[in-house]
């Protein structure tokens, strides 16, 4: 792996995704910058989640899915050459809409990623769990009950736990699919703050249905409609002066 073009986290070229006969991503090309937050917005069903899942090869788990085009990550088209999926997913973390902590203790949730990669030394794990929980600002809230079930946490805490769990495998990219849509305003705020913190170390792609959130928290915003990329621009520009009429209609709340 020779480091050449390190400017982009992903370069997507002519990407198409089909579920069966149903094409949900259509000839989509875009670049996502490193160490930036890229937001993807668009009405329900437009293919946001699908695009996100293509980036870490999760789509390939869904039966009857077909992908064509290129997604270049670390100078390698992950849909062209053979890639080690487990390794890829280790490096590209993903956080989902509904927090889904495993039915384990808080500690084991965070330690899970390290354990599956063969790390079992107690002291190393301890250190890692603490570090990751601190990164998501959850440490103080849970440090006294690390061995309690993660199910007992509130929604916002669970979501931060899931992010910590992701960080524990030391990815360099974070994909987030509507990570705050199930959360209350305060928890949402915390996660948004966390994003600003995390983008120093990670490249982040976030799908959101909340335009205010995109406006507040992202550097670049991509607007999708019916599987196509309508507009990609720095967030400020996209919201204040969209080039495209549809984009304008959408950000003005005319539909969706």
């Amino acid at each position, binding site marked *: 792996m020779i480091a050449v073009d390190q400017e982009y986290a992903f370069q997507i070229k002519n990407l198409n995704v089909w579920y069966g006969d149903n094409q949900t991503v259509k000839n989509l090309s875009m670049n996502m910058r490193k160490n930036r937050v890229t937001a993807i917005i668009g009405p329900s069903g437009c293919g946001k989640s699908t695009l996100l899942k293509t980036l870490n090869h999760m789509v390939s788990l869904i039966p009857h899915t077909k992908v064509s085009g290129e997604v270049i990550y670390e100078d390698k088209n992950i849909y062209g050459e053979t890639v080690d999926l*487990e390794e890829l997913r280790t490096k590209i973390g993903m956080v989902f809409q509904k927090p889904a902590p495993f039915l384990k203790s808080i500690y084991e949730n965070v330690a899970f990623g390290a354990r*599956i*990669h063969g*790390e079992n030394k107690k002291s190393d794990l301890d250190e890692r769990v603490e570090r990751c929980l601190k990164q998501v600002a959850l440490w103080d809230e849970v440090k006294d009950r690390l061995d309690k079930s993660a199910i007992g946490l509130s929604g916002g805490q669970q979501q931060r736990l899931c992010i910590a769990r992701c960080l524990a495998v*030391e990815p360099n990219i974070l994909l987030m699919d509507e990570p705050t849509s199930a959360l209350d305003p305060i928890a949402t705020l915390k996660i948004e703050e966390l994003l600003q913190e995390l983008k120093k170390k990670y490249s982040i792609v976030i799908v959101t249905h909340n335009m205010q959130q995109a406006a507040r928290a992202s550097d670049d915003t991509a607007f999708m409609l019916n599987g196509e990329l309508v507009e990609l621009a720095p967030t400020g520009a996209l919201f204040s002066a969209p080039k495209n009429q549809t984009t304008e209609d959408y950000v003005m709340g005319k539909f969706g």
Partner: protein
Amino acid sequence: MSVYRKQLKISKISDKIQTGFLWALCLSAILLIISLLFMVVGKGLSQLSLDFFYKMPEELDKGGGISTVLFNSFYMLILSLIFSIPIGIGSGIYLAEYAPDNKLTAMIRVCVEGLASVPSIVFGLFGLAIFVEYFEIGLTILGGAVSLGLLNLPVLTRVTEEAVRAVPEDVRSSAIALGATKFQTIMRVVIPSALTGIMTGISLVAGRAYGESAVIILAAGTSTSGVMWDFSLFAPGETLAVHLWYVQSEAIVEDASAIAEKSAAVLLLMVLLINLIIRVPAWLHHRKLNRR
């Protein structure tokens, strides 16, 4: 990150091995069961002829058929369903639609599950005690059908409850919001939507009742009235399943093992048929509705 690489390799190899093992295990187990059943069916089918179905069972000589036991099987099945379907479905609807969420309901649920777990031989003994010992009507179709009906009850109840529960709440509220009474909602909206599930339940129960033997032996006996189309409720009620056991183990007739082989094949095919027959209308119904 590269520290993970070695571990990843090991994990992947073990993943491959485990996957392969599962493939082998599952396929061989299924193949084994299927081939055993095919052996049973095959042996019987090759000797099967049409007259086997309409000839009377012979008591002593070769070449008997299964007409009366076949009749009893269906007769008793239908009777048992007549007893159990209204009550089973009624209870299922009660639990899904009416039961308030309290201790009593919890207890009723335990009862349903408890009844579902009662071994069939206990139902047989119960039937024996009631009909033979208490009412002294002997081993009869009635006794067998009622005992079978009791055996079916809890399963029907549970399946109905599940099927009714699975009907989306939106559909139910929509009907209520249109001013329908609860009864109308259940009859016109909920039941039609739950029909596939209920039908599956009935076929499950019917298949089970059709093949049940312990209950029949104890409550309906191991002989028939010897008359075809005997609708008397008080005739003895040997069924095909019992006949299979009876000829195989009593061996009075000359060609006992051949009859057993043929009966086993017929029994298996009938059970499959019941499963299909009852499911097909529900399936068609479903298809029709889903067609654009």
